[in-house]
């Protein structure tokens, strides 16, 4: 009798499943706390922008019985209007993570590889591995993605380069010049996928305008998400933008109807008059960053941050132990061992109350008065 385990392909058997954290009430019960500050997922503490809130409130429950638009028609119109592109250049997914999967399915076959960094968002590597595609991991240099080494890793069977820009968890980013040089030297040998999940947190003229650059480089694909700046993580909406030809390819390997109706209307609404929301979020993130850097400096802890609503700090004890100690004080941070940064944690930059709770929990957990 063949065991069930042996029926799965080798690369699936070797893959370690991701275990998400338990729901808050369960965690609070386990750790014996009456409040939990979730600072592990880089969510927006301000929530969705007002227009999205209204759209959610106006969503008639009866609509839940109907299938949504199978290809997020209205949302793509809204994105096209926003970025001055054709709706055919957009593909919406159930979170941008779903789109990562579709891109790899579309462009990689047996024997192919993707190139990405060793210390970056894990999903590119995971999807490649559990699909039987080689994930070629290029070490960071000075805590940033190294364009030269990534170029060198693009051999014939490397079909996609994933560049997390800005990079989660280091906050480092390639500027206009770095990206342009990379694209020119790559010369279309592979697709370049920019993950701009944290793009909206940046207001720097040197940050590449990928929506423009893709007009000159049709091997450039960009994805963004409504989970971070737009505060809609719970509704799971992300999108891909690229040349019509590239997006058409990805659409073939993407399951239609994967974005729910409420998510579609909330995301489209979130784009309306979003300037105030973005400004308020950036201000919150900046204040929180300043506050935490002060806390870490005072404790003599090395920290690392840049763009994005998160900061990393190096811990004098194992990050997985510190995680448990912080949980006992009602604060949830992200351990960084899984990002190949052992003894670092990453903390989302949020409202003052949460930041103070974290600072006090950290001092308590490390026995600092």
């Amino acid at each position: 009798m063949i065991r069930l385990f042996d029926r799965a392909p080798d690369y699936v058997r070797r893959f370690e499943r991701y275990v998400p954290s338990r729901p808050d009430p369960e965690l609070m019960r386990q750790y014996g706390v009456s409040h939990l500050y979730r600072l592990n997922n880089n969510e927006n503490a301000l929530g969705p922008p007002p227009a999205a809130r209204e759209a959610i409130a106006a969503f008639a429950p009866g609509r839940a019985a109907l299938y949504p638009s199978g290809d997020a028609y209205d949302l793509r119109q809204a994105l096209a209007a926003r970025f001055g592109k054709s709706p055919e250049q957009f593909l919406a997914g159930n979170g941008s993570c779903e789109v990562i999967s579709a891109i790899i399915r579309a462009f990689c076959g047996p024997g192919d590889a993707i190139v990405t960094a060793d210390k970056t968002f894990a999903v590119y590597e995971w999807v490649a591995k559990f699909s039987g595609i080689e994930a070629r991991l290029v070490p960071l240099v000075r805590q940033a993605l190294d364009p030269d080494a990534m170029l060198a890793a693009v051999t014939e069977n490397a079909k996609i380069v994933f560049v997390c820009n800005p990079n989660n968890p280091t906050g480092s980013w390639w500027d206009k010049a770095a990206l342009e040089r990379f694209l020119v030297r790559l010369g279309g040998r592979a697709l370049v996928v920019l993950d701009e999940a944290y793009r909206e947190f940046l207001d720097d003229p040197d940050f590449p305008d990928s929506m423009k650059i893709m007009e000159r480089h049709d091997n450039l694909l960009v994805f963004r998400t409504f989970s971070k700046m737009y505060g809609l993580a719970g509704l799971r909406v992300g999108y891909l933008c690229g040349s019509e030809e590239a997006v058409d390819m990805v659409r073939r390997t993407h399951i239609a109807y994967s974005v729910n109706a409420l998510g579609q209307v909330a995301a489209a609404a979130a784009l309306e008059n979003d300037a105030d929301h973005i400004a308020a979020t950036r201000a919150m993130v900046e204040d929180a960053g300043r506050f935490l850097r002060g806390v870490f400096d005072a404790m003599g802890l090395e920290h690392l941050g840049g763009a994005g609503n998160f900061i990393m700090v190096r811990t004098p004890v194992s990050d997985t132990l510190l995680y448990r100690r912080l949980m006992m004080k009602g604060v949830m941070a992200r351990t960084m061992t899984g990002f190949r940064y052992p003894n670092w944690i990453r903390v989302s930059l949020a409202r003052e109350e949460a930041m103070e709770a974290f600072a006090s929990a950290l001092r308590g957990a490390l026995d600092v008065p």
Partner: protein
Amino acid sequence: MPGELSVLMEIPKDAAFACPAANVAQTLAERSGFDRRESYRFQLTVEEFILCLIGVIQEGDGLRVILTGKRHLLRAAFAFRAAELSLGGLNSAVRDVVRSAGEPPRDLGLLLAAASADRYNLEHQGGDRFRIVAEVDRRYPEPPPVHAPQNLQPPYRIVRHPDAARLTQAAALAVNAYPAWQSPGCFQTPEKFADLADAGEIACVLALDAAEQTAGLLTWSPCSDQALYFSGPFLFTSGTDRDDVARLLLDGFLEAVAREPHAIVLSVRATADLLPGYFEPLGFLQSCAGTVCEQRPVVFRHLREDAGMAAWCSPRIEDFLRRSYAGLAMTRDILPVEEPGGAARRESLLGATLDRWRDLAELRPFLDGQDMAANLTAHVKAIREKGINTILYYMDLSRPWDAALAGDLIRSGFSPKLVLPYGGQSDMVVWQHDQTV
């Protein structure tokens, strides 16, 4: 030298097949490049196990034997089904060591087999299915002397897949610089270490200095589905560079295993060069050699965010468990189990792994039974007779009947030493048989 060689045999319940099967074992050993002595031990192991197991399996059933020749060892795996009633025969093989005359031959057979192999392991695969694995190690030549590298200079860097010559040299350096118990057994014959690394059975990170001299080493290998066991860090630098090299090795190790399937890493032989803050102390195990006993620290590190879980617990060790979990800052729902009032089965079954090299016997319960305390005592006696000092018992807290055996363990002279989170299916209590010298 050929790669791995393997032979699969389905043997009927008929003792006449033991001898030809042993001949196959001999041929495999020869073809795998083993010398006469190892070949003979392997042959004996296979023949004796088959004779013994044929007495245990049911009428009409067969025995599946897989013989494997690797560079560093010969392995015989026996898979079979045994109805509950005949299981006693397996255990008594160990139990009967101390018996003098009149024991049934099949028990003696298993005993002999255990004596010819370097280690063996009995696994319960569920229901009435079992597997025994016995291994005979290759004899490697004594290592030639090595000289410690001089004037190591920064910058240091690490490599993940050094070549065999480098591995051999690093292992020899480690043996020279550290007490023997801190090294994996294979370091004593460094060529074996290189073979194991080549076969993927042991992984490492190695540090080089600016001039490509060997500056440090750290090794690891899986010890369960969830756990990796590491050795080191071994440092060959002096002065202030030591911490830098240690940090490179530790970070390199953890980065290498961070996205792999294992949940924890642990060691009972970490060197004093382990940097503070990387690992959590779990407690101590006692190790005795001759008349001297020492307490060896056990260190552990979770690779993931702890999700919490339930742990079954006997009132006999509840205080110990609660104290251990509090020290670890781990939340567990402690679920009480009662002492087994009267186990349904008469005969208990223990799995045993004996490793002469490491002076270690490890016991795991497969089936509960009324005779558990007596069975434990018999095992301890038999193991001690074999000259093995360290006897550990692993209790998996995911199984209520297993957790309920605390009383039997205490009665048989074991004490709970530490809780190893994710050491088994869930957390594991490591018990040690108390030894007085």
